[in-house]
């Protein structure tokens, strides 16, 4: 396929990709723009440059605390739900199991059940079990929500990845765990990365469950949602959003720079 096409003569796909990136970035790029705007209100025309929203953001410990909470929960949930999803995906794609379809259906239920019901019922469950609300309970709820996402992504990767690869790993003397680590893991790595990205994004952005299952520690969406009551709190939040956005961008660029300096890390693994 035409891999050697010079960048100044892009083909349709390349043009499409750029347009698509514009579509997903354009609205988000207004966050930084308005985070420097000297007005509480997000509206044109711009009123002049200011850094005061960033100052307000830095001097807003509850918001930063909420941000940290969300990052923590997001990372833990992403890793755990990807592990759970991977185990489950392997089980249902690799073994002949009676009751496979109902089990899969059961795991998918969090996708169909309205979040407010999941939130309220989990809260009832927790108060029956006398478990106090904390970030852990939020994390558990997010885990329930994320596992189906993770599993769906990974099942679609595992299906059609040849089972004999894993058998070859076993056959060559590795136990199940090492076979997983040395064969399955690298081959499903694109799926794992996609799952990590997705589940982190879900958890990081989830509001309803986090509201019902958090106590005195908030996550960022809960903080932002409740702080909309005060318009003056929006611009610092905007500054935070812009900062997250720019920071992720810098991290990604930096990571890419590191990678380019290093040797060809994984030329054949598909990622």
């Amino acid at each position, binding site marked *: 396929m035409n891999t050697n096409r010079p960048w100044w003569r892009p083909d349709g796909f390349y043009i499409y990709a750029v347009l698509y990136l514009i579509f997903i970035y354009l609205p988000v790029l207004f966050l930084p723009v308005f985070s420097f705007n000297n007005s509480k209100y997000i509206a044109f025309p711009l009123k002049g440059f200011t850094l005061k929203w960033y100052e307000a953001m830095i001097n807003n410990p509850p918001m930063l605390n909420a941000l940290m909470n969300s990052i923590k929960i997001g990372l833990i949930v992403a890793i755990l739900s990807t592990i759970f999803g991977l185990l489950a995906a392997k089980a249902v794609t690799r073994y002949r199991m009676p009751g496979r379809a109902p089990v899969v259906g059961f795991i998918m239920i969090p996708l169909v059940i309205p979040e407010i019901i999941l939130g309220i019922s989990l809260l009832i469950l927790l108060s029956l079990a006398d478990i106090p609300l904390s970030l852990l309970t939020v994390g558990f709820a997010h885990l329930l929500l994320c596992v189906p996402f993770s599993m769906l992504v990974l099942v679609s990767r595992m299906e059609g990845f040849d089972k*004999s*690869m894993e058998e070859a790993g*076993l*056959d*060559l003397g590795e136990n199940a765990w090492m076979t997983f680590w040395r064969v399955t893991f690298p*081959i499903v790595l694109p799926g794992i990365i996609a799952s990590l990205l997705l589940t982190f994004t879900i958890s990081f952005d989830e509001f309803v469950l986090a509201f019902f299952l958090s106590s005195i520690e908030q996550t960022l969406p809960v903080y932002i949602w409740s702080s909309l009551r005060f318009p003056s709190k929006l611009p610092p939040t905007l500054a935070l959003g812009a900062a997250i956005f720019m920071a992720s961008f810098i991290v990604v660029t930096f990571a890419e720079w590191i990678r380019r300096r290093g040797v060809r890390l*994984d030329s054949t693994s*598909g990622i």
Partner: protein
Amino acid sequence: MEHDAIISFQNVSKHFGKVKAVDHASFDIQRGEFFSLLGPSGCGKTTLLRMVAGFEMPSSGEIFLDGQPMSVSPPNRRPVNMVFQNYAIFPHLDVRGNIAFGMRKSGLSKGDLNKRIDEVLELIKLPGYGSRGADELSGGQRQRVALARALIKQPKVLLLDEPLGALDKKLREQMQIELRQLQQQLGITFLFVTHDQEEALTLSDRIAVMSEGQVLEIAAPSQLYESPSSRFVADFIGTMNFFEGTVTAITANNMTIATQVLGEVRTTCEESFPLGAEVWVAIRPEKFRPEFTSPARDIDSIEGRMGPSAYLGDRSHFYVHIANRDDPVLVALQNLEGSVHQLSRPDQPVWLRWSEDAVVVLAKD
């Protein structure tokens, strides 16, 4: 269990739900043998192989590998290695990485391991291919890498699951020779699964013919071909002409069978059939000698008419119509002197002759 058996199947069965994939298999494979499992697809040969590898567990019975029962051994603890049908080359590793995969716990130093890999690459005739990626290899090369990856482990038994099925004919024949040489050179027991009878005959020391989960016969290729023990085996290995008959006389060394088509057929008697038994008389196509003049004696011969023929290069196939028989009899002839044209005139009368020891008698059930 015989003394030198490397693998011993004892009453091994495997069920998938109601399907009996393998039904009470009991036999031994000797150390150093090239042993083939042959049968049509779905006969259970791959399941049997996978049970040796440990990917499937017998529903009942036990497999002994070098005297050890295998029912508690996972695949990674068995002294066997497998060449998979589709080779299962790890896509994320290069050739060297694939070959080195199983050597993690070998205790070899890095240098020694590299030397071993180079040796094996030499063995499979791919020196200098170590840094190729899996997607940069041809089918034959993948097959060699899969072989090397298994052989470097120095298994007690090498399992091969139709490894040549995906190759074209020429490459397949070349690989057959190489495989045979490799096996003799290394002295490792090969357990080879195939549905290609010619391949099995070419390669094997012994062949187990399987059908519908059952092992029908285990024998050396020549015995399997020359004196099969059942109609299925006779039919599956090569081609065979079958005629119905009844045993009419038995002497110490000879048996006479009356057939409607061939008349009285005499044969050397190896297996004992009772007088009056209904049997199949089977004669291989190449055992017929066509003649175009009426023979002196009418015993051990039959008159027919030439039907269609097929030129196959090294040999030709002729279909001969015989009275009292709907299907023509198949006759194969080496194209020794290019005398094909003379034979292939349609409707020409022809007499087919055979010798006594060409006749195989099979029980009719």
